[in-house]
């Protein structure tokens, strides 16, 4: 499991904010700012963070739905950034995405069969004769029955619609899938079903995916490693278990302490992180988290911390003071 599937280097996705009279952008919204990330084949990486921190934009940039301003994305050794539509086309079916809103992800005028057939045909080496058989197989994979194939999206529940989206994403036998908040729009019980389905598919098909969510509990269920994003930057990457037991970054600790435990007896105090999410147009100088951090000193306010590798396997942190800080299992 050492093979690198995706590697991003100093990836920056900036959106022009205001335009001056001459059409030159007056300010940039730095949704993704200097993100270097490696995803190994067979690995399930989680991406956590508050809403508006650039998680989805990072996912879309990796898939080339959004073009980055600078930096590179390598997929299976190929740099994708400068490819045009034609050159990118063979890579498209190999990377898929499952969105947050299943309703809007399915064309209301197409039956499930048509939706799946379109995806199967997109794979250049598909077997032309047996599209129907393949569709039945895909439906079975996501626990839907053959008769469902002939129904329209509005005849399905939200959970079933999301299953169709997952089936569509699997139809091209992709190397890599991005789940963008794929369970956030669903009821908790349905959410659990979908998460179990994803876990089963992961084991069965050996999937590699990036799971984007604001919910650490969800990520802990389906991911081996979790990357925490804050204001357009990755602040920490840790193994899921370690992230909960000994978070390295003060922000990660803040996120962990805000996760409720389902135990009515437990006396829980939810410690929220003080302050507001900073603007991505004009982020704070130095460490982007320092205005909200309890441990910030003068260095944090002036110098930008580098993302540095920890001695542990595939763990990274972006904090000046992580050596002095030691957060253990105890919640505040």
């Amino acid at each position, binding site marked *: 499991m050492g093979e690198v599937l995706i590697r991003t280097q100093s990836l920056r996705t900036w959106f022009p904010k205001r335009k001056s009279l001459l059409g030159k952008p007056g300010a940039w919204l730095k949704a993704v700012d200097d993100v270097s990330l490696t995803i190994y084949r067979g690995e399930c990486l989680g991406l956590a963070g508050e809403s508006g921190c650039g998680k989805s934009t990072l996912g879309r940039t990796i898939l080339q739905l959004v073009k980055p301003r600078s930096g590179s994305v390598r997929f299976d050794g190929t740099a994708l950034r400068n490819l045009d539509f034609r050159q990118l086309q063979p890579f498209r079916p190999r990377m898929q995405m499952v969105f947050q809103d299943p309703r809007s992800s399915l064309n209301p005028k197409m039956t499930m069969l048509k939706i799946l057939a379109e995806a199967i045909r*997109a794979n250049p080496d598909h077997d032309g004769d047996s599209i129907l058989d393949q569709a039945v197989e895909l439906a079975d994979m996501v626990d839907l029955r*053959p008769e469902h*194939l*002939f129904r329209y999206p509005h005849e399905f529940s939200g959970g079933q619609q999301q299953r169709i989206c997952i089936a569509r994403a699997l139809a091209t036998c992709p190397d890599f899938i991005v789940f963008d908040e794929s369970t956030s729009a669903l009821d908790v019980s349905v959410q659990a079903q979908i998460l179990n389905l994803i876990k089963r598919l992961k084991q069965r098909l050996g999937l590699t995916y990036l799971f984007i969510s604001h919910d650490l509990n969800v990520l802990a269920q389906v991911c081996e490693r979790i990357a925490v994003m804050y204001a357009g930057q990755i602040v920490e990457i840790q193994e899921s278990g370690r992230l909960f037991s000994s978070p390295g970054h003060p922000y990660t600790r803040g996120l962990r302490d805000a996760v409720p435990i389902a135990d009515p007896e437990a006396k829980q105090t939810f410690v929220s992180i003080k302050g507001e999410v900073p603007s991505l147009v004009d982020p704070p100088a130095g460490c982007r988290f320092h205005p909200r951090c309890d441990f910030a000193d003068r260095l944090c306010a002036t110098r930008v911390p580098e993302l540095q590798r920890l001695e542990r396997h595939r763990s990274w942190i972006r904090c000046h003071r992580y050596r002095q800080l030691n957060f253990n299992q105890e919640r505040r």
Partner: protein
Amino acid sequence: MKDELKYKHLAEQAAREHRRERKIRTIAFLKRKSAAAALLVLVLITLAAVFAPLVAPYPDQGKGAVNLGERLQPLSGKHLLGTDTFGRDILSRLVYGARVSIFGGLFIVCAAALIGVPLGLWAGYSEGAPGVVISRIGEILISFPAVLIAIAITTVIGAGLTSAVIALIIPWWPWYARIIQGEVLRLKRMLFVEAAQMLGYGKSYILFRHLLPNIMRTVMVMMLLDFGPAIISIGLLGFLGLGTQPPNADWGLMVWEGAPNLMQQPWIAISPGAAMFILVMAFNIFGDNLQDYLDG
């Protein structure tokens, strides 16, 4: 092989279910009295227009032949709706006039959609210049009253139904372009478009396979609801002498011809006015009901 038969059976079953659902909704639609009555009126008037030579009691008078012996007759068994200043049977002229209203209206609405929908698709789907250019041209055309355009065209190619229809299409298509542009901009942001992009499908594939099928409903309802205004506009241009020329029959022209005698022989002007009112109401009621049916 056996499996394929099994799926075929399932496909047929699903198709049957969808058909039954549609049938139930269609019956419910027709059971609404207003919808059924409007449809009946539309069918009758259309049939009368198509088969005018068979329906009209005096076909040659409908086409304009004068009959000075029977000028300004009131309603009677011989002339159900009376006669006009030239002794022509008004019912016959109404039937021939319906041709102008129905087919003129149909032509205007279809032409406006045929020009406006592709331009709207283009404007909405391409980023930047085409959208802006098409919108601005559309706004300029909309801002001219049709009457003004009709006068301009009349001076070039002469008055007649053709110039009236052209004059109406010119400021009409931008409405289609504008609405479709908005729809495309809305649909373009739907996630199924991104999903198709992720599969490697190109712009034209997405436009025709994903966006267009979702837009057809809007186009259909819009065309149906536009029929009424189109008919009234043709009538207006006819009334002003910019459309159909005498002795041909046209409802708007007939109102103008009857206007001087409005006090003494009111039926001459009222009959075509009432016909237009009934036809436009029928289109509007049917269109409203159809919109509900399609939304339901």
